[in-house]
């Protein structure tokens, strides 16, 4: 990665948003380079949507500064809107308009000309031509998502912001969606995508993890897993449920989770973890071997840590942002 400032598509520091006395986003810093696909992860209500809305000018930050596509995030939101495609979490096109009518509306808002050529090309590209006259409200989840993506990229934005784009979409549609995203990134489009899905996070070039409004991890998936310092062991054998109960609560054991026929045992202190597992290794019916820490293990740890922080502050965890 180069440090050429021209290459930074999103470069914001200290973004803060409060709703009432709740700080939904707390001094978030985010840097995204051109052509990157950056995953934006975090539990429900951690401030992902709020951060994305601040980046695309839908919300005014209470604090912080920075640029998006070289435009000031505080004062140049109209310029930003012209060059950003934002796909909302909830389907937000007109259900009583047909696909083509929705696209025509969007094309005219962006003053694309000629409108019909843009609409036809977009329909063609996303394989929506045969359904052009179908009302958007009658589309299934997967098709709605295609339509939303089509509408967001029609004006050829330089930055695509996707807010949980694949929620409620079947695996095949998800796969196709991600292929499309990678294709767009290959053409130079920068993508910031928020998600809950681990497999999607692994499809990103880099990830940012936000928890209760604070950015707590950043880097490639490998970086984030390594930086977490977690150690994982796999336990194989019969009656793993009972083993899990035995292990839970032992010093050094932070997570115990069954994965099919094995048990993931995760901890951040290798010595303590080994000590806890030593008695098991002696049992003939069980086998204990070092395993690979998954991104999910890391996230569970992040979430566990953050929840503790919030509990100490006595804050309300029901922030819906």
């Amino acid at each position, binding site marked *: 990665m180069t440090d050429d400032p021209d290459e930074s598509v999103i470069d914001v520091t200290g973004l803060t948003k409060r709703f009432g006395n709740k700080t939904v986003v707390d001094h978030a810093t985010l840097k995204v380079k051109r052509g990157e696909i950056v995953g934006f992860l975090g539990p429900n209500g951690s401030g992902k949507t709020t951060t994305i*809305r601040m980046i*695309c*000018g*839908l*919300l*005014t930050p209470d604090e912080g500064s920075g640029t998006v596509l070289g435009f000031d995030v505080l004062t140049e*939101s*109209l310029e930003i*809107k*012209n060059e*950003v495609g*934002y796909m*909302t979490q*909830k*389907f*937000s*096109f*007109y*259900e009583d308009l047909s696909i083509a009518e929705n696209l025509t509306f*969007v094309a005219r*808002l*962006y003053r694309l000309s000629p409108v019909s050529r843009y609409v036809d090309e977009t329909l063609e590209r996303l394989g929506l031509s045969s359904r052009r006259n179908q009302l958007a409200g009658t589309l299934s989840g997967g098709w709605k998502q295609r339509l939303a993506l089509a509408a967001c990229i029609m004006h050829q934005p330089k930055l695509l912001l996707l807010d949980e784009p694949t929620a409620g979409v079947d695996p095949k549609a998800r796969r196709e969606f991600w292929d499309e995203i990678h294709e767009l990134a290959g053409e130079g489009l920068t993508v910031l995508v928020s998600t809950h899905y681990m497999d999607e996070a692994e499809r990103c070039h880099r990830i940012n993890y936000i928890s209760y409004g604070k950015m707590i991890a950043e880097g490639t998936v490998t970086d984030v897993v390594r930086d977490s310092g977690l150690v994982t062991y796999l336990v194989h054998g019969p009656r793993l449920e009972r083993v899990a109960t035995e292990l839970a609560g032992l010093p050094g054991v932070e997570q115990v989770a069954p994965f099919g026929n094995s048990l993931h045992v995760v901890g951040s202190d290798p010595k303590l973890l080994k000590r806890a597992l030593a008695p098991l290794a002696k049992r003939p019916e069980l086998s204990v071997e070092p395993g690979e820490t998954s991104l999910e293990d890391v996230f569970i740890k992040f979430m566990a840590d953050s929840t503790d922080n919030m509990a100490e502050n006595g804050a309300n965890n029901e922030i819906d942002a």
Partner: protein
Amino acid sequence: MFDFARFSPTRLGAMLAKEFIQMRRDRLTFGMILGIPLVQLVLFGYAINNDPKHLPAVLVSTSADPYSRAIVSALEMTNYYRFDHVASSAAEAEQLLASGDVAFAVTIPSDFGTRVERGDNPTILIEADATDPAAASGAISTLGTVASEALKRERGTDSLRAANQPGALNVVVHRRYNPEGISQYNVVPGLLGVILQLTMVMMTSMALTREAERGTMENLLAMPASPMEIMLGKVLPYLAIGAVQVVVVLGAAKTLFGVPFLGSFSLLLTGILIFVFALVLLGYFISTLARTQMQAMQLTFFFFLPSIMLSGFMFPFRGMPGWARAIGEFLPLTHFNRVIRAIMLKGADYAAISFEMWILIAFVTAYAGLALLRFRTTLD
């Protein structure tokens, strides 16, 4: 058939508890449940009076003889008339009547005193603005007897001469603008305003709230559209719908009800256009306050209720107490009613209604300002 076996009081209780929780959460609806009866009670109970008193009147009189003064003070004593204008010519009185500044013009001829003393039958002329026949009827009905009594009394003080001069007072009443006292003439033009008020405000307020409710607003705001573009785009279609309504109501007024149309059509259309513009902007403003379409509808009705009662559409404006009239002055419908009735029934020209027109324009400006002030291109 009602299946008692399947009826569970526990389940009913669960439904009731849930409904009450939801009712309590929806503050606006809850406020409406309490607010609407209160507003109605106050309006109906205190503000509405079908027998208006203290109606403004103009006195056209050139003589200052005791008989004239006696009649004027007797008319004022009835509490129906309040002579706050004095005109020296009939034309001046006519203008005051047409613009709606006064409800009555009382003309006492200059030879009135002489005729009384001569024993001729003296005549006074009372012209009433009968556009609202109900409002004027009380004042007219007391007129003849009160004036005659006053004259008799005045003569009585003049001792001996009065006794042998029984010249009776001749009161001529002209019901102006609506001589037959047909109430449709008053109601139908007013209805245009009421219909426009209800549909324009409601449709506009719900159209924008629908965007917010369905989540399409977020998308719209993420795209490069300015508040002015969004506002005009949302408002202009309803102006067109308003135009259709105007054609229907005015057509019906002419063909079904035979309401006279004396004034300038283009002047009326100008007035309607300004009024409708004010209404759609009001609707737009409401939509910036309401979160759901339901709330938008409730706010529309909250505004509609006083409009229909305090604007002079349903009950005589002059019959209301001062505070109610003051509220009425802040409703566009009040001013529109004055404009349309003056133009259609009185044939008023621009000069006579320019003041009301400018007030309507002030509403347009105020609502547009409020709407743009409230409207955000962000979701903050």
